[in-house]
């Protein structure tokens, strides 16, 4: 192997406004683990390019974020990335070959769950050394990162009335109430035409109830048409909610229709404004931060930069006593054994496996990710299959022990790294996490996402610099320096943690500045239509 030969200079062919750094030009491929038999292209690499680090030459053009074989791989041999199996070679593959879904087969793996065997409790920082942020302390001791009034609907039949009431409270209307972040609608497509009882209805009720009780929701108006399947009185009773000055209800049929209901609702919200405004931020411990972890529009870089950097930030948060919620069950499928081994108890590990089993049944025979299909965007970005995507996705949570497993939209009470069972679909997943109490969402993306959420704001982390530059108005943090060889994961993690504290203290995120978030409340539609 001639390791002394120098590689030809790489001319990036990817349309990019950013000049690749010297580190990238020296070696266009990243090796993630010494035992891996694939390496990942930092940028688009032409065919015939020698790769000095591994003594191979690219056999085809390799798109940015895609992989090549670092050595010859025999048919049926495991393909290793992060020293973890992401599939099996579907043919004999010469060194330097572009590796993707066409030559990586998705096989059956035997997993060793090692429930709780690798659990090591987190060494928490002493309370006086913990990082602090400017939060709003509520009467029950919970801490808010924002201060909203929410306009909710028990069913879709109230959606227009809710949007028009919330829409009335523009910046001018709220000018006298500087401590209120906004009046926001929480509308959805369910509550009517669905199953009247059972898990679909229970899930809808705890999602609305959890969002309404969220520390970031200072006051709430709940709207009903008057005869929907999610009947208002039954909803309130199910969720133990008692109407009062800061939790008001409005029934459209009783109010006399749309126009009168809008007028009545505006008056009800107006009455809540002075009390909602009477809050002040104060320094509080970072232990009150609860981050919901999301990823969307992942690419081959997500698992190399944004996800592990966010994981590093979450490890800092957890040492400070805070909480990180990992979710998207269908997207951790294949690497769940890396979580069960560090579960607090074997029971916690088994709870996770039970949810995975539920998912395999729910998705049986369907053309979905858990059955091996990643979205076209993920595939184009270099992710061959769900194992490879899961491996990168799970890195968002870092390596802290798994303290608890929650069902969708259940209240999260444990601190540390926890898991909530949600679909991979971002709006549904984030809605469940926020209903569970998340007061911030951290969202990694490679292809670029325009997601935003209320009442908990979304911080978006870009996996690569070219996309960050292209979509800078939507991106909060660029993790591209990790790819560009200009920052380590640990440095990036510290930077993310510092920015999380700033956004928790009130600094608006990009999506907040753009006004994104009022179409993203999507409770999981689990049942059948009626």
């Amino acid at each position, binding site marked *: 192997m001639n390791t002394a030969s120098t590689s030809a200079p790489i001319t990036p062919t990817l349309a990019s406004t950013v000049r690749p750094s010297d580190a990238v030009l020296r070696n266009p491929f990243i090796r993630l683990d010494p035992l891996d038999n694939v390496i990942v292209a930092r940028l688009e690499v032409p065919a015939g390019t020698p790769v000095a680090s591994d003594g191979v030459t690219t056999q085809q053009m390799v798109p940015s974020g895609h992989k090549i074989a670092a050595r010859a791989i025999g048919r049926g041999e495991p393909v290793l990335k992060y020293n973890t199996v992401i599939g099996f070679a579907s043919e004999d593959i010469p060194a330097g070959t572009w590796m993707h879904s066409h030559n990586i087969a998705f096989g059956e793996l035997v997993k060793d769950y090692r429930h709780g065997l690798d659990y090591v409790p987190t060494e928490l920082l002493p309370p006086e050394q913990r990082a602090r942020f400017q939060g709003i302390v509520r009467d029950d001791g919970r801490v808010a990162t924002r201060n909203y009034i929410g306009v909710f609907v028990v069913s*879709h*039949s109230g*959606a*227009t*009335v809710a*949007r028009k009431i919330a829409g009335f409270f523009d910046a001018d209307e709220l000018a006298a109430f500087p401590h209120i972040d906004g009046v926001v609608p929480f509308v*959805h*497509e369910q509550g*009517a*035409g*669905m*199953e009247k*009882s*059972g898990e679909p*209805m229970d899930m809808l009720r705890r999602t609305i109830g959890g969002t309404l009780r969220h520390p970031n929701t200072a006051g709430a108006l709940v709207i009903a*048409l008057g*005869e929907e399947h999610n009947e208002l009185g039954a909803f309130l009773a199910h969720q133990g909610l008692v109407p009062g000055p800061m939790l008001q209800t409005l029934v*459209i*049929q009783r109010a006399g*229709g*749309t*126009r009168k209901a809008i007028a009545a609702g505006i008056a009800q919200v107006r009455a809540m404004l002075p009390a909602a405004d009477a809050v002040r931020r104060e320094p509080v411990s970072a232990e009150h931060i609860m981050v919901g972890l999301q990823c969307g529009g992942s690419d081959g870089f997500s698992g190399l930069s944004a996800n592990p950097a966010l994981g590093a930030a979450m490890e800092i948060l957890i040492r400070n006593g805070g909480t990180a919620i990992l979710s998207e069950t*269908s997207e951790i499928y294949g690497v769940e054994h890396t979580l069960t081994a560090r579960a607090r108890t074997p029971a916690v590990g088994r709870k996770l496996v039970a949810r995975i089993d539920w998912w395999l049944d*729910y*998705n049986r025979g*369907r*053309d*979905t990710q*858990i059955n091996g*299909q990643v*979205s*076209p*965007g993920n595939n*184009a970005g270099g992710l061959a299959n769900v194992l490879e995507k899961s491996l990168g996705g799970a890195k968002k949570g870092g390596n802290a022990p798994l303290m608890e497993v929650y069902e969708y939209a259940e209240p999260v009470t444990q601190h540390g790294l926890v898991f909530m069972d949600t*679909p*991979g*679909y*971002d*709006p549904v997943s984030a809605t469940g996490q926020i209903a569970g109490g998340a007061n911030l969402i951290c969202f990694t993306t490679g*292809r*670029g*996402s*325009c997601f935003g959420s209320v009442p908990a704001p979304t911080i978006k982390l870009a996996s690569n610099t070219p*996309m960050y530059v*292209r*979509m800078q*108005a*939507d991106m909060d943090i660029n993790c591209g320096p990790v790819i560009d060889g200009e920052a380590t994961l640990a440095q990036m993690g510290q930077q993310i943690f510092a920015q999380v504290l700033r956004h928790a203290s009130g600094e608006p995120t990009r*999506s907040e500045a*753009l*006004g994104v978030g*009022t*179409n*993203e409340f*999507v409770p*999981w*539609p689990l049942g*059948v*239509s*009626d």
Partner: protein
Amino acid sequence: MVDISRPLAPDTAADAAVSAATRPAPARLLSPEQGASFQGYVRPGGRVGTRNHIGVFVVGNCGATAARKVADHFTGKRLAAFANVDGVVPFVHEIGCGMEMTGEPMNLLRRTIAGTLRNPNIAGAVVIALGCERNNIRGFFEQEKLVAGPLLHMLVMQEIGGTAATIAAGIAAVESMLPAANAQTRSSVPVEHLVVGLQSAAPDALSAVSADPALGAAMDLLVRHGGTAILSETSELAQVEGAVLARAASAEVGAQLAQRIHWWRGYSAGRDTRLARGDRSGGPGTCSGIQRAGSTALQAVYEYAHPVTARGLVFMDTPAYAAVSATGQIAGGANLLCLSTGSGTGFGAAAVPTVKLVSNSTTFARMEDDLDIDCGPVADGAVGVPEMGRRIFERLLDYASGVPTKAEELGVGDNEFVPWPIGVLA
């Protein structure tokens, strides 16, 4: 001889036999010179719109905020110079990503979006994608045989550079379409171009006495004029399966209906739904849903959001849930909706006017801002069903010709595009 050791034949077989014996006689069509007309927008290809909207669509939820902000930009003031354009409407929804990539759930979503985009009430459209949705925008265009052009724009947020850049591009795309959309004018067309979707929401005991039979009488007139009425809400009508099957114009139509009802029984099995419970709107023994359809025979059966091409009374398989049902009918080509209610609803569809008929004058008085036609006089005995049917029919021609419905006056519709979420999430 009956073999009692075998289970009884399913009701459907018996009902199909009944159907053949009691099949309604074909409706007598009026000659064109006898026929009524309305003022509509004649589109290329000959279909006729009752409104003239520009639609802002999304292939997935990720484009929803951008789509709403593009549509919201076009306030009455900004559209003042385009008097023939009724509005710029967002068609956002909660699915399109995190779902099954192929199969009926994706096919259904795609034909719902494409059918709505092709509805004759839509003069031009922008379709927004984030870029990495499972409902890939280029795959969607290809499958639905849509071709981008001056009146159909495709915007991909990841390519354009994010939310703000896409909103600006969307506004520019709509602005570029406004002159062509504004050049459309209404002309007199025969009633055969009217395609009415039948809906109900929050019915009461009087619905079967007044609003539904009166609406049925109006639909008989519509069918005699060569128009089309779409009966839907399979989960509701399955309760009166025999009566529905008896209305089939042919054994083939009857078999298609029976097949959809059978599908629904499987879909609802073990669920707490109206079909599984055996609920009938308006109480036991009533059959008000079928009354809305009048007395003519069902000519064809369509699956959800499939293009409706037959004339006369037809059936489209949808849930009873009004927003989902109306969305399927509009995707199928409905250019007017008639919704019957008892205790009142504020429903109004996007881009297609919804005429709301109420069964009683008490509700009408309480929710007059939302309700268009009071059928209470029928319940009170002051007006007969045939007379109310004639009045409704005439009012429908007015609404089809541009008279705004209550829902349109209130600006309802931006939240009512709800494609049937039939699959699982991923």
